[in-house]
């Protein structure tokens, strides 16, 4: 009886086979012909190919199914995959190599996943799942996913393999010479993701020759805890008379592979351009070397599509602002599905220096799983920070973890049996670093001893579920000192004991410590320092809180965790210590003009952070796009009036001016007397050709900043919305810049825009128009080929909701074209759309 592959993988040398394409070409495969068709058309040639590698001494060989998926073979996929596995088994019999393992080979779909491309994540999982079902049913011994150059697609493939069979799953990905995937992932981020998904082995193939792979292999062996596979090409390709040839022969290849084997990898083989002879020599040489098993690295890491963040020894900041608790506006944004509001909150925290972002979108009246899915998807499409999925709803947790492109943090599990039984299986399946709260059925222990006891229980649960201990961070639970004077002491002791006795990592929601007290930032920043000193590995906090960031950066510098104090210097060079107000006024080069006070905190000039951003919560953002920015100092901009600020497109000074003006002018007078006329002035300039599109948008952004301030002053009062408008880029078209420009302008003029996004089906637009009873729909198309969908959308709208008007725009659109497809209006630019809206709504 043959040994199970899992008993051998990582315990002895294993050799994979080599290239397929060049050998099939020499057997007569034509350019453009799909190699997988040969499983049916020319089985003898495929069997022959396998026999070559089996006789060369490989242990694992791949079925001829690299490109087999339902996109390429919609009609006979099952037949092809089954035949491929049968051919492999037949080869094994003929070569007398029953000890060898048949790997069901799975390559990329050739499509990019959303949001980069148009293949939905779950569709990718389905496509791969189908192949895995057919292949495992036909008798493959393992699944080998290979040549993946997108971490997201790799995740889809691994999930599909795990969900559709119980075979071992190995995966090799393709890095470029800089050690990056095509979509930006690094060795570290890729390993974090794949180990989190519990693959049996991982590694690298294709793209490069063995020599060029060496730096990548080095990093792989430094960070991997699972066995590492290395399958290079036979050097670099060049074209010779229309044929691709590779420059590294069998002898040289085997020499390099010997070096690679000695670096601490566990399995070797070849890819494009390698032949049975390459593999024979490699197997022969490598098997003579002493085998080294992979070592456990015990690193606590989370990842995004491109970044890997290690927790400890250097503590990290987890931004807490994506959370509705106690935030009226955030709650409203959730109810309105205003995801952009949430994205802005995320971007601000990234700019402020957060390393990871907590994502909590729980609100009783919304569909939390759906909201979690879309927020995670949108956040990871605009920022590169790893996310922490924070929810008490198991379904929202699973959907967030599933759709996430990386290894997330998971917030949280508690010591309760039910919580453990719900959360651990998800972490086992999807991977993640899990925040463990030291509370259980009996509540929160009042002493450190009790909390440590629960922590131990959670570690034991991790062992049971096969989750590595390093993937647990213990939340020592910060509770306000205003109700229990000893609470900080207990929390700090818990941190210390987790570090010293359990050798684990810790996390805290730091700001809870000061709840109910005045000057919370004062307490928070000092508590943060104390917690860090007692071993805190991750602080959940507001990275826009400058006092806390000061404590954090000062701690790193003092604790020897900031080499040459570079981080500290970068953040604070050129800034001044806070001095008493009386002195500051007279001090030359003091803090004058640095902060406008709205953030309630000092600014860090050295990081390029300006004053408070509009809608700011303390996290300041830059305003360097302002007209005349660079020249205009904070002092001079604060003197600028509202009209001028809007006309010159300066968001920050527009907000300031609005705030000042509100002291003596009624909100509505300010809007009608200054803001709208200023906008009109810019709009007219745009139409005359004296103001250009970037300026128009900057003015719009400045006006928006002012509107936000004015709206705040109107809180509680009903705010007038002039009308509601749907905008969409039509089906088949993925260009959305034009549509987004129109959206900015319409919102400026007081319209409520329902943005359906890009590539939107006609039915979806009509359905939304009917459901929301919309009077005006704006459609955008950039390609002549997609104007067809525009026409179809208009036809359907006119049929199903005849009272709705349609305005169209886009690069290829003309008045004649618009007439031909029965649009109600052709708008040549954003201002023209505004004018039509005024007409429709009687503005």
């Amino acid at each position, binding site marked *: 009886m043959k040994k199970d592959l899992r008993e051998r993988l990582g315990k002895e040398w294993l050799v994979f086979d080599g290239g397929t394409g060049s050998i099939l070409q020499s057997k007569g495969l034509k350019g453009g012909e799909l190699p997988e068709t040969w499983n049916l058309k020319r089985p003898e040639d495929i069997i022959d190919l396998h026999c070559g590698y089996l006789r060369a001494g490989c242990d694992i060989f791949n079925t001829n199914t690299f490109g087999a998926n339902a996109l390429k073979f919609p009609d006979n996929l099952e037949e092809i995959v089954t035949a491929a596995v049968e051919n492999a088994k037949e080869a094994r019999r003929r070569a007398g190599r029953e000890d060898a393992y048949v790997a069901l080979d799975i390559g990329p779909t050739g499509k*990019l996943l959303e949001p980069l491309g148009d293949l939905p994540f779950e569709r990718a999982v389905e496509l791969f799942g189908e192949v895995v079902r057919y292949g495992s049913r036909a008798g493959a011994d393992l699944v080998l996913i290979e040549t993946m150059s997108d971490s997201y697609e790799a995740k889809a493939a691994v999930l599909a393999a795990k969900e559709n069979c119980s075979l071992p799953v190995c995966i090799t990905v393709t890095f470029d010479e800089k050690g990056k995937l095509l979509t930006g992932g690094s060795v570290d981020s890729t390993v974090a993701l794949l180990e989190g998904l519990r693959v049996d082995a991982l590694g690298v193939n294709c793209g490069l020759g063995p020599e060029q792979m060496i730096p990548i292999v080095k990093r792989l062996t430094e960070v991997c805890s699972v066995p590492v596979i290395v399958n290079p090409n036979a050097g670099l390709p060049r074209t010779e008379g229309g044929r691709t040839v590779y420059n590294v022969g069998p002898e040289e290849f085997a020499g390099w592979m010997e070096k690679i084997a000695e670096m601490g990898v566990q399995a070797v083989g070849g890819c494009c351009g390698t032949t049975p002879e390459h593999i024979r020599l490699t197997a022969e040489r490598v098997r003579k070397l002493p085998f080294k098993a992979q070592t456990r690295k015990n690193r606590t890491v989370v990842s995004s599509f491109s970044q890997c963040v290690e927790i400890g020894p250097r503590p990290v900041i987890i931004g807490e602002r994506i959370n509705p608790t106690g935030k009226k506006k955030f709650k409203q944004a959730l109810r309105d599905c205003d995801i952009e509001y949430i*994205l802005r909150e995320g971007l601000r925290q990234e700019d402020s220096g957060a390393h990871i972002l907590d994502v909590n979108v729980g609100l009783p009246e919304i569909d939390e799983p759906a909201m979690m899915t879309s927020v995670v998807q949108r956040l990871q499409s605009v920022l590169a920070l790893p996310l922490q999925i924070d929810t008490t709803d198991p379904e929202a947790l699973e959907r967030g973890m599933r759709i996430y492109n990386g290894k997330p943090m998971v917030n949280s599990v508690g010591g309760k049996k039910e919580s453990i039984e719900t959360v651990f299986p998800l972490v086992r399946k999807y991977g993640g670093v899990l925040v463990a709260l030291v509370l259980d059925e009996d509540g929160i222990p009042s002493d450190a001893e009790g909390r440590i006891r629960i922590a131990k229980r959670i570690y034991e649960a991790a062992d049971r579920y096969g989750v590595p201990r390093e993937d647990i961070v213990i939340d020592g639970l910060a509770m306000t000192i205003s109700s229990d004077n000893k609470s900080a002491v207990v929390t700090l002791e818990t941190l210390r004991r987790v570090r010293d006795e359990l050798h684990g990592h810790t996390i805290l929601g730091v700001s809870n410590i000061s709840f109910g007290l005045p000057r919370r930032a004062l307490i928070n920043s000092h508590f943060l320092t104390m917690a860090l000193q007692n071993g805190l590995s991750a602080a959940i906090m507001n990275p826009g809180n400058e006092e806390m960031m000061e404590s954090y950066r000062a701690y790193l510098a003092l604790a020897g965790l900031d080499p040459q104090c570079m981080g500290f210097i970068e953040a604070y060079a050129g800034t001044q210590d806070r001095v008493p107000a009386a002195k500051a006024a007279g001090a030359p080069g003091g803090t004058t003009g640095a902060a406008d006070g709205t953030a309630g905190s000092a600014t860090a000039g050295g990081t390029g952070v300006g004053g408070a951003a509009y809608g700011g919560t303390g996290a300041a953002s830059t305003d360097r796009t302002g007209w005349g920015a660079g020249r205009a100092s904070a002092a001079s901009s604060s003197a600028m009036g509202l009209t001028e600020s809007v006309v010159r497109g300066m968001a920050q000074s527009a907000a300031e001016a609005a705030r000042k003006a509100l002291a003596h002018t009624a909100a509505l007078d300010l809007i009608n007397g200054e803001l709208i006329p200023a906008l009109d002035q810019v709009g007219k300039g745009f139409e005359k050709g004296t103001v250009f599109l*970037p300026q128009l948008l900057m003015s719009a952004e400045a006006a928006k900043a002012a509107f936000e301030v004015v709206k705040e002053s109107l809180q509680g009062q009903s705010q007038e919305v002039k009308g509601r408008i749907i905008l969409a880029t039509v089906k088949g078209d993925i260009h959305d810049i034009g549509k987004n420009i129109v959206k900015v302008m319409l919102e400026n003029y007081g319209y409520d825009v329902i943005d359906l996004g890009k590539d939107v089906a006609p039915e979806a637009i009509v359905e939304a128009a009917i459901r929301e009873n919309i009077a005006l729909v704006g459609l955008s198309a950039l390609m002549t080929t997609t104007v067809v969908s525009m026409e179809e959308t208009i036809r359907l709208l006119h049929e199903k909701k005849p009272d709705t008007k349609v305005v169209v725009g886009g690069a290829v659109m003309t008045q004649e074209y618009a007439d031909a497809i029965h649009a109600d209006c052709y708008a040549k630019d954003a201002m023209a759309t505004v004018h039509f809206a005024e007409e429709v709504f009687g503005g």
Partner: protein
Amino acid sequence: MVLRPDLREITRYLGYHGVTPDENMMSEIQQCIEELENVITPRFVYDRFDLLQKEEDGRSILSFGGLETESRDLARNLKGCTGVYIMAVTLGPGPDRLVRRASVGKMSRAIIFQAAAAAMTEAWCDEINERIRKEAAKEGFCTRPRFSPGYGDLPLSMQKQISMILNMPKEIGVSLTESYLMTPSKSVTALIGVLPGPASLDVASQKLTNSAAGKCENCAAVENCPYAD
């Protein structure tokens, strides 16, 4: 990687019809170019194929690289050519991310990124085009201006065959949507015809690629080009 985009092209994309933006806008554009330089991952792939042309019942049929297509405009572009290079270039997914990111609340920056990235893609195209021109010249061929699917009557659907011939998803990470648009969006495919003759006959080398004699020659919008100065 440093690509030198044509600043005039960027301002043209931004709607400055022959007007030079002021200093602040120019420095804003410069900043955006620098940010883009940090995120682009330029890649390319090209290959050369023999070209066969024939006229059948007044239809112009072209075949190369195992594909056959009918296009009067491409036939005109490739007149007299014996071979054709097929090229595909991309700046990678970085620029799309940057545009998406800026679109959240800062559209003015998003459109500058968009315009600058488009011009950088053109610059990258020019660079690869130039490489091809030199390669052809060494073998005694001169080149025609590059021509892309979607120009004139050459159907966009030809992208599918080009993608297969060059193995674009694997080679440069570019894939097609259902409607044959390329993702990442800062990508270009093009055909460059070659015919025997000295390099002095190159049209591409005469810096005409941005004019009516170059890539605009078959554009449907040539009469009312929104980007014309």
